Every structure is written in C-alpha cells, then in structure tokens.
C-alpha cells in the first residue's frame, strides 16, 4: 500500500501532458497516452507528407494543432530554420530563418539541425549544432536569441552537437559539452539571460538533459561520461550525483515509478525518494546496454534497442528481462511507445510497429518511407509524425 501511495505523485506528474513537447515526448521517456493507429499508412485519410527546406534529424514536436520542426540549409548549413505546420493538413503555417553564428562543420551523417525543439506549450526553444539558441512564441514571433559560441568560441564538436534542450521551472536547460570548452547553461525563459552556467566534464557528449518530476517539483539531470548530476533547474544548484560513468550517446529516462534509468554499465536504475533529494541504486545490467537510441519506459517496463537491433523489454523495478525481439536495422532513432505498441524507424526508413501487450511480442506492421530516417518519431492524438532530410510525414490510419 505504501508503495502505491508513493507512486501516485510520480504518476500524476507524468500523465498531465496532451502534447508532444520535446525529444522523446512530454515525459522525456518516449511514452504517450495517445494511441498509435491500428494501421499506419502513407495514404491514410489524415496522412500527409510535405517537403522540407533543409536537412535535419531533429524530431518534430506537437503543440495543440501545430507541428514544429527545425532544419538547416545553405552553404555549410548556415541557415537555421524553425518551421510550423498545420497538423491537420501539413500546410506550412510559418517559417523563421536565422543565421548560424557558431561552427557548422558536422559529420556527414548528422547536421546542424540535430537537436529537437522543446516547448512548454507557450514558447519554443530551438538549439542548433552551431550553439545558437532561439526562443519563439507559437506564432513564430521572436522572444530572444543567444549565440553561445559567440560567448565561448570553443564550444563545438567536430562531429556536430545533438543535445536537445528541456524547459523546467522557467528555465531553458542547454547542454553544450565537448572535448574543448564544455558547459551547461540555464537560460531565463523570458529574457534568454544566463541564470547559471556550469563547467562540465570535457568530452564529446551528445546526450540530452532530462526532467525529473515529483510532487510538483522539477529537477534536471545532466548526463556525461562521468555519470549524472541532478540540479535545481532555476539555480543550477547541484543536489546529488551518480558517478559510475554513463554513455555519451543514448540519454537517460525518467519513469512513473520514480526510477531513473541511466545508460551506465549497460543500464543502471536509481530509485529516488519522493522529494528526489536522494537515490539508491537498485540494479544494473550490462545486457540492457542501448545502442544509439535512448531507452523508453511505460507501465513499469523499460525498452532498449541494442547495437545489434535487438529490442529488449525488462522490468523497471528489477531489471529482469521479459523478452527480446530482433528488429530490422541499423537503427539510430529512439523508440516511442503507448500502452499497447512501440514504434521505431530504421535508418533506411522502415517503420516497425511492435505489439507489446502479449507474452509473444511481434512486429505487427511495417511501413517503408524509402528515405533515411535518423530521428525519433513524435505523436499526435491520432498519428505518428516523422521526418527525414527532405520530408515530414504524418502517418495515420
């Protein structure tokens, strides 16, 4: 009984969002209360696709009836795009362009528009590999701009940056961590001024910060090769740290059980107290090591896809492996899931829908977009949204 009572505050905070507000959704763990359509189709009544003006592997975000996305184009990808589409018909609502003020050199596989937008339902925070951070309202009006590479010319990664921002307690959390200058910033959501700046471990880091929520409180966790630290988002004050190392590519996931899943030594689970002031490591398992994509979690289960494209389901509380399923890869994006289904796209554009509510999970549908897909899909209430370098698709029944 005590356990149930303790789990209520976590659960309450995780289920309040109806939009898809950031990388891996509003909960930051890939889960959603929306329904993945029974059959997703390129020709569905509500399906559409539209051409994009630039490259990108950032994920779409969804606020109300709009889908927002970033892209980069032009010589050396120096033009930064922020786009808004009508969710119903795919028509472009508005487009805003800015100039990259930092370095735009990237590995060919990635690009300057690699970070996913974050929204609080009122504003959008766009972060680019050039370390430009732009805040717009939902109508595309500029709220503020920062050029973090203008402040610190050495915050760049020769392969490209990809950390996605989060918004917590009126603060945009921006991780810009690499081999040379390495920082994380808390930027005031209203003004774009620096609330706090933290020196971070030097080393290329493509992970994204995540938000931990409990009892109306929000903390932010920053992951690096050294481990993970939890901060007060408004002040940057460090509350606790996990120092057993962590991956620099897949990000952590917060679960409704108040358990934090960190890609460390395979996968490590930390149980936080209800105030999130302290933690206890409850298990670690190197058989749950994710590949490039981040883990997702829902209903007490966690799901990881390893570098051999095997999807593994395990218990969040114990780490006990429930089942494995080989998918078609290679896979770069992270999976997302609902109560019954999990979806992930392979690099070749093959969408794979896995039915989860059986002892024998299986791929129940595939859809081939015949394009390179490196992003994590997003969800609206009745469809999946996914993008390539050239196109944005909404896939419905």
């Amino acid at each position, binding site marked *: 009984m005590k356990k149930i009572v303790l789990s209520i505050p976590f659960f309450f905070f995780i289920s309040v969002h109806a939009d898809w507000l950031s990388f891996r959704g509003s909960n930051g763990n890939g889960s959603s209360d929306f329904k993945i359509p029974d059959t997703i189709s390129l020709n569905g009544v509500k399906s559409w696709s539209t051409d994009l003006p630039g490259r990108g592997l950032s994920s779409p975000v969804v606020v109300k009836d709009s889908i927002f996305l970033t892209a980069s184009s032009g010589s050396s990808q120096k033009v930064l795009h922020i786009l808004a589409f009508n969710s119903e018909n795919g028509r472009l609502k508005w487009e*805003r362009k800015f100039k990259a003020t930092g370095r735009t050199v990237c590995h060919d596989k990635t690009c300057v528009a690699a970070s996913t937008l974050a929204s609080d339902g009122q504003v959008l925070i766009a972060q680019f590999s050039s370390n430009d951070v732009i805040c717009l309202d939902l109508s595309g009006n500029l709220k503020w*701009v920062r*050029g973090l590479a203008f402040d610190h010319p050495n915050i760049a990664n020769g392969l490209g940056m990809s950390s996605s921002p989060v918004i917590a307690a009126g603060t945009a959390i921006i991780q810009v961590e690499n081999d040379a200058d390495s920082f994380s910033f808390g930027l005031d959501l209203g003004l774009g*001024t620096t609330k706090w700046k933290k020196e971070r471990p030097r080393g290329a880091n493509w992970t994204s910060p995540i938000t931990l929520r409990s009892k109306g409180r929000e903390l932010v966790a920053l992951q690096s090769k050294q481990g993970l630290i939890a901060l007060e988002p408004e002040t940057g004050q460090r509350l606790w740290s996990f120092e057993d190392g962590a991956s620099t590519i897949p990000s952590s996931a917060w679960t409704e059980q108040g358990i934090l899943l960190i890609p460390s030594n395979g996968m490590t689970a930390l149980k936080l107290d209800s105030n999130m002031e302290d933690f206890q490591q409850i298990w670690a398992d190197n058989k749950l090591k994710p590949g490039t994509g981040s883990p997702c979690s829902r209903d007490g289960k966690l799901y990881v896809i390893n570098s051999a494209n095997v999807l593994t389901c395990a218990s969040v509380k114990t780490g006990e492996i429930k089942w494995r399923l080989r998918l078609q890869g290679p896979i770069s994006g992270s999976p997302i899931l609902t109560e019954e289904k999990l979806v992930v796209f392979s690099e070749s554009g093959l969408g794979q829908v896995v039915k989860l509510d059986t002892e024998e999970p299986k791929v129940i549908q595939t859809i081939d977009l015949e394009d390179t897909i490196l992003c994590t899909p997003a969800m609206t209430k009745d469809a999946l949204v996914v993008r390539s370098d050239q196109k944005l698709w909404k896939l419905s029944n």
Partner: protein
Amino acid sequence: MNNQQHAKQKRNDWFLFCWRHRITFRRKEMKIFCFLFPVILFKTFASVEKQVVSAFLAVDSHGKGNPDAVKALSMLDELDQKSILPLLTAMNQANPIGDNWIRGAINQILKSSKSQPFPSSEIKDFIQNKENIGSSRKSAFELLQDFRPKLASSMVPKLMNDPEPSLRREAVARLLKQASTALSDSETKKLYTRALTEARDAEQIKQASNALKEMGQEINLVALMGFLTKWELIGPFDNKERAGFGKTYGPETTNKESYPGKNGPVQWSTFSTSDSFGMLDINQKFGEIKEVLAYGKTNFYSDKAQKAQFRLGSKNAWKIWVNGELLFARDEYHRGGTRVDQFILDGALRKGKNQIMVKVCQNEQTQHWTKQWEFCLRVTDPSGRAIKQAKKK
C-alpha cells in the same frame, strides 16, 4: 425682463459664448493638432525605430542587452515596412547576435504589415550598395529570395565578383549548374574554367577542378587556393595524457635551432608536401607515434599590411600563432576528418615577413581512425581569395 427671463437670457448668452469659444477652441486645437500630428507621428515612429535599433545594437555576448532587446521586440507593432531598410542598415553595425535579433524583428514587421508594399527596390539598392557590409547584404538578399524570388534570381549573375563570399557563391553555383548541363564540351570547359576562377568557396573550387580534371585539364590547386606547403618542423615533444597541448615548450617562447624533445634534443628541419590540398602528414616525418606534438613554422611575405584569413584544417588538437600572437587554439582530437577551411580565423598580415607557427598534437587513441597527425593551411583575403606572396626581400 423679469429676473427669471434675465437669468435665462444670461444662461443662453453664456451657453452661446461657451459654445462659440469651444468651437473656436476646437478649431484651433484641430488646426494645431493637424499640423503637429504627422510630426508627432513621425517623431514617435522615428523614436521607436531608434530605440529598437539601439537595443539590438547593444546586444552582446553572455546575454548582455537581452532585456532591452526583448522590450524592443514588444515595440515592433508601432513600426511598419518603412523600418525594414533602417533595420537592414543597422545590421552593418550589429554583431552576429544582434544580426539575428534584427532578422527576427524584420520577420515580425513583415508579418504584421502584410498589406503594405514590400520595399523591393530599396532592398535591391541596399544589396547593390557595397558600402553595406557583406553579411547585411546577404541578409537582404535572403529577404528578397523569400519575398521576391524572381527579382533575387535576376540579381544572381551580377554577384559574380561580389566581395561577400556567400553572395558570390550564389553566382558561382549558377555557373556550375550551367556547366553541368552545357551541350558542348567546349562550352562546359569554358563555364567550369570561369567557375574555378571566380569561386572562393572550397567546395565549389573542388567541384569545378574535379570536372576540369575529368576533361583532362590539370589544375594547380595549391597555387590557386594558396596552401602553404613548405614548412620547418620540429618534434616530437611529449603530449602524454594530452597535457602537452597546454604546456609551453621552447618554440612558443624562443627562437632557437634546437630544444629538448620527448626522446632527446630535437631540431628544426624542412618539411613540405606535394598534396593537392596542401596536407602535411606529420606521421611521414616521425612515424605513427602517439601522445606527441610537433611545431611547424613558415614565413609568409605580404606586399602590404592587410586583413587576412588563416584557413586551417586539422583533426588533431592545434594552436596557431601569427607573428608571435596566438590566433586560436582548439583542444579536440579526431572528431571527424581533416577538412580544407575547417577553421577560418580572421587575422592580419604585416607588410613584409610574417611568421606563422602551428602546434599540432596527437593523442593516445589507438583506433585506426585516430592515426592521422596532419594539418593544412592557406592564407586568403576576407573574400576567400588566396593572397599571393610577395617576393622575399
């Protein structure tokens, strides 16, 4: 007239007096107002515009000036499309961050004053006026591309000799496209040759030279692009645990023939490359060794004092000094390959001899993709054109 009638008459007289005076007063007031209104409006408009511009120009690093710039954004409703040109002009003085604030502001004005005529000809004039700085002209050109694409397209051929590399690139891109679809070999060759002459962008130069090479024409890219291929090299020095990057070895402070190296005394010796893109493979000199660093130095002779860009490519950690002053340092290893123009550093050349020195570090990684220990460097003017060296005196 009784008292009552008298009182009534007085009231009427008073009423009439007031009414007349009110009318007179209102007329006067209206006249003054009608005269002053455009002046007030213009002054208010100009004042708002001035405040907005001033706020965006004050934006600086670390979010300095953001609160005032945020306020300025809230004043944009008072401006209309007449302010676009002043805002573009303000970009001439803005830093890159202020430039982005101004872009956002222009977008907002265009959105809120859609019914007004778009100032096409003023923007065209702005682009053509080379007294405006290149990045502002490029922003204006992008605006024209968005709102008057045909007009923008018609301007492209005239951008061929533009001092702004990003505008020039537009014209060269069109030439390359024409070359790739030309009907005869002679026309193709002519167009690619012109593209090669006009191009400043490394990728466009490569594209044109590759096409010409396929047609049997030899291109001296080293001379065309201005790669520095003859160096003096000294090393190896110790870079265990990557500590050598931050350590000041002798070549950074003195000008001697020999210094203590990692494995004993080391001396400067000549080192050159015949690579088409001026790549200097330091492994060729010292073997594929790890946790080491080396210095390369060369002299560049300029016929005048001038602004210059030092365009360096390296996948190793590096530092570069020009005439003894550190220009930039980057402590990153093997994140992607070495690329031409990977780092474009603004600097200056003195008239006569200029010493350029680079420090190139190798780390401890053992993967096959970490064995490279290399760099390439070229010196150009701000448009990207190679600066030809003056004769030694």
